[in-house]
């Protein structure tokens, strides 16, 4: 457990939570990043403006972190081909499952949505099984 960082994790979580509440309080929208990004890809979707502005904010926040605390942004250990497959699965899976870690894991669970609780348990289990296989069986 040598990398355990409970204080910064909780603090970051609280900030994430506040941003979720902020978007919902001011704009009545669920902060589900896969929905925000995914809906922009639909030719006839509504709500493109607010989604673009939100993603702009996300990128601006990323730039702030990169400038002030670049060590907080890390590279993935996965090889390029694995990253490709992973991205495809995350993108497709998030659309099929109608949510991701923010949409289901944070917003949905906060609403005590059974759908989101199930989705979160499933992707947690799936993620853990995947890491178990790649780290302890396949020896990748």
């Amino acid at each position, binding site marked *: 457990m040598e990398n355990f960082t409970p204080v910064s994790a909780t603090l970051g*979580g609280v900030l994430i939570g506040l941003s979720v509440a902020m978007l919902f309080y001011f704009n009545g929208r669920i902060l589900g990043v896969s929905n925000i990004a995914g809906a922009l890809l639909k030719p006839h979707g509504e709500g493109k403006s607010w989604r673009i502005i939100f993603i702009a904010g996300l990128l601006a926040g990323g730039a702030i972190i990169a400038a002030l605390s670049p060590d907080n942004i890390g590279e993935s250990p996965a090889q390029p081909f694995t990253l490709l497959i992973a991205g495809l699965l995350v993108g*497709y899976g*998030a659309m099929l499952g109608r949510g991701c870690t923010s949409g289901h894991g944070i917003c949905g669970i906060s609403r*005590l949505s059974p759908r989101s609780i199930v989705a979160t348990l499933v992707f947690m289990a799936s993620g853990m099984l995947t890491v178990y296989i790649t780290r302890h069986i396949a020896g990748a």
Partner: protein
Amino acid sequence: MKWLTIFLAGILFALGLGISGMTQPEKVIGFLDIAGNWDPSLAFVMGGAVGINIILYRLILRRRRPVFDKTFTMPRQRNIGGRLISGAALFGIGWGLAGYCPGPALTSGVTASSSALLFIVAMLGGMLAFHVTQSEHEDDDVRNRIPPGDRKPADRQKIASAATPVRHI
């Protein structure tokens, strides 16, 4: 003003991701690596975010509407079926392989990190693949929330049968 709150929410969300360590894929994989050198930090991230919102969510919904819009836009309640479970399963595999999910990947992409950018491109590709292969019935699963005080018996019946007028997104 409305746009500013959206923009600030995006910044705040990204800062939260960065401070919490979620923009470090190794740390995310560390949480999923229950048989290895397990790092429970992600549980605390979710705990902080969910803990706050379990309370705030209900408080916010006492309002008739959000500050800058006519209605809250809510996911329609749907059953827990094969699509939800298989979607989540596929998502989890990708998440476990890369240690990225949409928010952290986009946030990290700003640094032109090659792994983030590659993941983002593939992720957008996966989303597009879904859009072009699936019918557009997915538009039917959001609704405008009618404030409790305004609901008429017909509305209650509509809500109960999940046939509330659809706001297409």
